[in-house]
């Protein structure tokens, strides 16, 4: 018996080659790279924001009434708000909130939606009927409206906003994964696993889930932007984050009364939302092009 276990690089040569190819084809698309750059910038600002902004205390409800509503200048790049706080600092510090919101909503939706979708698609029959009917009920109500109702019941606040959005977000993942699992369960390799006596749990974990990951990754990366936008919407109508905590939607909500004379107050947080959503969408599109090239480019 001469077979010895080769090194990691040897065993996974094909995987590494595949990853290099993914990186290469991703890099060839300018829009994907722009998306990656925006997403990377966003993550960097979320990680290092408190150390790079000029007035970190302005996010904690400081008041500086001598500086109210100053236009953009060298001292205040984005101008100041009605409390005299530096908008540049507040916009940057809000990235951390948005990142946390986006990751929590998408993470919770994935953790709930993917197992349900896999179970529905794989087992079929009554299990599928039960899961998909509940999913359909959620999908039949516009998400943001349902989220509004849930927040109204729970009471306003950023945590309740996240809970509400997570509750309306998971059905999309069930739909996506159910369709994929339904196609996979009839694949001969799944039948082969059953023929050697593999349990349902093993088949789901080893054969179904790993073949579902590409569309999940693509959807999750695109949903990051949308989830942040939805959270900002809740903030805008006063049901999400509460001032003085820095949050883009809540900032715009206050700023709209100062339009158009004090335009910078609304424009810079708005632009931050726009850029973030755009970045995650371009990034997700790029991932779809390399991971899921057969799907239509919607």
């Amino acid at each position, binding site marked *: 018996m*001469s*077979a010895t276990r080769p090194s990691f690089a040897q065993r996974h040569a094909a995987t590494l080659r595949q990853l290099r190819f993914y990186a290469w084809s991703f890099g060839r698309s300018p829009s994907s790279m722009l998306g990656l750059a925006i997403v990377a910038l966003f993550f960097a600002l979320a990680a290092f924001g408190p150390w790079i902004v000029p007035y970190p205390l302005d996010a904690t409800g400081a008041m500086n009434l001598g500086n109210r509503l100053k236009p953009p200048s060298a001292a205040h790049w984005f101008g100041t708000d009605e409390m005299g706080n530096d908008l540049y600092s507040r916009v940057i510090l809000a990235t951390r909130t948005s990142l946390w919101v986006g990751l929590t909503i998408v993470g919770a939706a994935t953790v709930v939606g993917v197992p349900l979708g896999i179970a529905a698609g794989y087992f079929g029959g009554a299990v599928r009927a039960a899961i998909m009917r509940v999913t359909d009920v959620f999908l039949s109500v516009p998400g943001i409206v349902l989220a509004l109702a849930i927040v109204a019941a729970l009471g306003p606040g950023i945590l309740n906003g996240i809970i509400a959005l997570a509750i309306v977000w998971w059905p999309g993942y069930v739909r996506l994964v159910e369709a994929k699992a339904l196609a996979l369960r009839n694949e001969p390799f799944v039948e082969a696993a059953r023929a050697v006596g593999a349990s349902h749990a093993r088949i789901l974990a080893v054969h179904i889930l790993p073949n579902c990951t590409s569309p999940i990754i693509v959807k999750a990366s695109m949903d990051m932007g949308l989830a942040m936008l939805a959270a900002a919407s809740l903030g805008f109508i006063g049901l999400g984050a509460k001032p003085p905590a820095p949050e883009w939607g809540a900032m715009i909500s206050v700023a709209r009364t100062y339009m158009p004379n004090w335009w910078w107050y609304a424009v810079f947080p708005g632009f931050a939302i726009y850029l973030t959503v755009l970045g995650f969408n371009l990034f997700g599109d790029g991932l779809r092009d390399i991971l899921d090239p057969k799907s239509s480019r919607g």
Partner: protein
Amino acid sequence: MSAPLLELRGLAKHYPLKGGRVVRAVDGVDVALHPGESLGLVGESGCGKSTVARLALRLIPPSAGAILFQGRDISGLSDSALRPLRRDMQLIFQNPHAALNPRRTVFASVAEPLVVQGVAGRDGVLARVGDLLRQVGLPDSFLWRYPHELSGGQKQRVCIARALALEPKLLALDEPTSALDVSVQAQILEFLQELRSRSGLAYLFISHNLAVVRQVCDRVAVMYLGRVVEEGPVEAIFTAPRHPYTRALIAAVLPPRPAGMPEAPLAGDVPNAAEIPPGCRFAPRCPIRMDRCTRDDPALAGTDHRAACWAASEA
């Protein structure tokens, strides 16, 4: 003769449709397979060959009938009761490109039966998988490859290695060569022949390629619309077919050096399995149909060479 390894008695698989109709995919199949024997199952597309194989291995539950494996009826067993029996029966698929999980290495795929059945320790698995690959003529360097790096014939060899991992007594082969190039088909068939003579496996060999069946099988069962219409030793079937459908199938094989195109021996299409005609199911297309054929359904008659045909039983 020894006791059969696998015996199917009145086996049926019905799929209900909306509106009360029923697709009778398999509708009363009786065949027996003895240890070390190779039984060919031939017939047109959609006649229920693959369903019979999946029923025989209990990958799907039958609607009626008995499946006797080594004398024990396994038709009603639960998944967990079937698990130990899975060691003794394995399946090879038609399309090797879809039969391997694209995310798993050859090692992981071939090791899966050993892991699932817990037959080899952690250290033993690698040695055993390398051994199996060598048995099917693949070098150790294939262990860490992914399916997309292999050719069709190599994939089919990996599938055979996976099926052999548990040292089964029965191997069901569902058109094992029809998705492969002609040159590769010959290699795989030769390997399967040699494997059987070496290990004494029994084959349930499904094919619509009569030449392949004639080469590989000891006995043949001809299926039409979910039922076996003729069954017997391979040479008897090919030289003296009794059922008109078998005759038509054999006549439909083109000779290697044709003097001219033969006449199409069969008119019409196979009826829908949801609307099986009364009497003999082959009667609407049968060239020697009699009055009786549209009324009474013939059963398989005979001892070693059986046919389900009124004309054959009278002759």
